[in-house]
């Protein structure tokens, strides 16, 4: 009897929980699933009323077209992402090391500056930057975009690395330096190898940031030849003429899926590193 009562009670408590959870989950997955199912059908089935969740004919033709359309921008995105990530590491690691291991006047303000950059409206900065880029000949160039992206990723990467470095035991470095290692040697041989999780987190977030960026690319370039896949997608779905008048819905939607896949793959394979990076930061509080 008491068992049955307990069961009923759990049931009464559980049902609303699961019901709400399912409703919220539907709201979360429906847009994604609708995007997916819209891409695996012939165009004719895209424009039907009522909308069909399961297409009558299954085809991947949209993806084939999307790969052709977005080939160049996709390569651009990947290239910018990798170069930016590498540059970010080269620039941010020494800065973070400097902030955690060395003493000099103005250190607190430096951290403050990095923090401040996270609160600025970039749309304001891009205005003069556009003028500067025109003058320096960086406008609409790959180099210009990479410089912009790197400036975008460096501040928070420094902050992230800094909180990780400051949690590493200092004794190992002291030992190494007593044994004749220089400071930079200690950074290279001791600190960096111990920091793999947070380094992966920095690389990953830099790549994703570049991959998703729209703002910098729109302001600092004009030709699809040098632009990222995110911006190419945006241009195709807003400005029909950008795609030579052949902007087809199913191609754009398939392009949207193609754009999402690498991010999912990165997240899935590197999940433990991201988690490690985050908890490492969180534990230092």
């Amino acid at each position: 009897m008491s068992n049955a009562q307990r069961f009923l009670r759990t049931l009464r408590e559980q049902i609303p929980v699961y019901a709400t959870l399912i409703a919220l989950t539907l709201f979360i997955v429906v847009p994604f699933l609708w995007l997916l199912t819209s891409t695996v059908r012939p165009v004719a089935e895209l424009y039907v009323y009522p909308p069909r969740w399961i297409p009558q004919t299954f085809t991947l033709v949209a993806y084939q077209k999307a790969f052709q359309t977005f080939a160049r921008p996709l390569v651009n995105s990947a290239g910018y992402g990798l170069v930016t990530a590498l540059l970010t590491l080269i620039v941010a690691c020494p800065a973070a090391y400097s902030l955690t291991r060395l003493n000099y006047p103005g250190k607190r303000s430096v951290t403050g500056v990095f923090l401040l950059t996270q609160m600025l409206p970039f749309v304001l900065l891009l205005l003069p930057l556009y003028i500067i880029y025109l003058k320096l000949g960086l406008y609409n160039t790959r180099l210009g975009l990479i410089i912009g992206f790197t400036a975008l990723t460096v501040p928070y990467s420094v902050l992230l690395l800094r909180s990780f470095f400051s949690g590493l035991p200092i004794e190992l470095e002291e030992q190494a330096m007593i044994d004749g290692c220089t400071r930079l040697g200690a950074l290279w041989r001791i600190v960096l190898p111990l920091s793999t999780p947070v380094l992966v987190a920095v690389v990953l977030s830099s790549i994703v940031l570049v991959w998703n960026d729209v703002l910098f690319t729109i302001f600092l370039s004009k030709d699809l030849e040098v632009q990222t896949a995110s911006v190419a997608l945006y241009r195709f779905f807003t400005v029909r003429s950008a795609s030579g008048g052949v902007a087809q819905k199913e191609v754009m939607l398939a392009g949207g899926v193609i754009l999402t896949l690498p991010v999912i793959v990165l997240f899935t394979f590197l999940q433990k590193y991201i988690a490690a990076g985050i908890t490492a930061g969180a534990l230092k509080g």
Partner: protein
Amino acid sequence: MIKLQAVTQAAEHLKKRGIFSSRLKRDEILLGYALLLPSFLFIGLVIGYPLVRSVQLSLNRFKLTAGVDSEQFCGLCNFQSLLRDPFLDVYLRNQAIWVLGATFLPILFALVLALLMDRELRGRWFWRSVVLIPWMMPIATTALTWRWIYDRQWGLLNYYLRQLGIISENVGFLTDKLWLWPSILLMAMWMWFPYNYVAILAALQAIPKEMREAARVDGCTPLKEIWYITLPSIRPVLSLLIVLGLIWSMNDFTAIFLLTEGGPGIDSTTLAPLVYKVSFRYYDLGKGAAIGMVLMLISLIFGAIYLQMVKAEEK
């Protein structure tokens, strides 16, 4: 999330001094600055100098239509022109709707979801992966997807709302004044709740189990438990998320630009897209910079509040 962590951490550590002490003071100082130099070159070129130049631009009359050399000091003329703008109230109203909606809706959704998920669940792995979907979608894909869902003729939402009898004929969710903001904010909620969710869930899991058990033994109903135990315990995280949300949504350009381009007309134009419009469509760089300055000053006020909160946390 990573960004959120980094910012929070840095603020918390602002006060701490370096741990190493060295006898070679001057070398240490020089090395310290030298290691910072590369990062400051990037930040100086892309953020620092443009910041100074923005201040200057906002005080100059500079219309590209009058020629590229037409830049001339004019004091506060751009700010005056902004104050006299006949559509100023529309922009400010849009900005208020956007900032409040895009901050609180995702946090609210995340809170409800986190409260539901903070328990033994069947198929935990499934629920967790689902929650991350909007986070992994690039914003260009997100905007495209929602535009397709909101499509006037073939959109999914029109179909379902008609089935439910809420609307009798198809509406243009992104063109009809009544539906415009709810539609924009629905997308904002969908794409921005995940990082709030992760932060809130982590805070929930840090609440000692004994507290809840004690509450339950004392006869607390689940709702009372949430109100008296759970919410007060996660209040610090919630207020941080709110302030950061306010700052980031205030400055956000991309979401609205990709979904509606500020339209129809100016009906969804907030201040960040307005900076772009005024500068690159009307070629009035001075006024564009002035609007940006207003935006920046408000952000900095919120930024200062944020830093105060982090400091108060420390004590």
